């Protein structure tokens, strides 16, 4: 499967939406940089990501989460990883697609 990375805020950019529409069930999605705002609960896009989590595995980069002070708001079921975990995900998947 592909690893999909999203680095844009879902409130400002359509990148996360495009990634959810064009990634296959079973694939992994990693939220990094401003993309981590997509990992939070009680936002207007939380339902979209919760829905995606039924068929895809969603990760968020913890250093980016902490930098933005949102560590207490992460949705249940999202896996937090560090850069080493990012490297592992890239290695485990067949290729990496960046939703820029």
């Amino acid at each position, binding site marked *: 499967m592909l690893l999909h990375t999203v680095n844009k805020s879902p*409130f400002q950019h359509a990148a996360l939406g495009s990634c959810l529409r064009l990634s296959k069930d079973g694939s992994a999605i990693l939220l990094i940089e401003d993309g981590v*705002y997509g990992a939070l609960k009680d*936002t207007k896009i939380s339902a979209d990501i919760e829905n995606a989590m039924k068929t895809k595995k969603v990760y968020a980069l913890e250093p980016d989460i902490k*930098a*933005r*002070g949102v560590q207490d708001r992460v949705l249940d079921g999202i896996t937090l990883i560090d850069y080493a975990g990012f490297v592992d995900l890239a290695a485990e998947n067949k290729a990496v697609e960046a939703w820029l």
Partner: protein
Amino acid sequence: MSEEMMEEGGGGVIKKFCYINRKAPYGTIYALESLEVVLIGAAFEQDVSVVFADDGIYQLTKGQDTAGIEMKNFSPTYRALEMYDVEKLYVEKESLEERGMTADDLIVPVEVLSSAQLQDLMEDQDVVLSF
């Protein structure tokens, strides 16, 4: 430097300056470089308002810890704005709500305005700088 600038720049004129912050911190540099303009601008003794809307409200999130991305955490600087007499900080209510946040989640005291109130505030400005 600031006195010379005042002489050269101000000339007694006081304008309504509005800085509008709509971008999240760290993903891009606009938030940090916007703050640098506000701090320098304070020396000119204009009538300054700083607005946070859309992802700009994330600039004010409490508990930022940037060690893991090796960047400087500049959020404490917003607390210093008061010392520079930059006291009018506004946050859009709709932007907070969309993100499941309240003013209590922010690092500095702000005035929360509705979109309609913010429209009026911005319409009243002489100079609008967007970041």
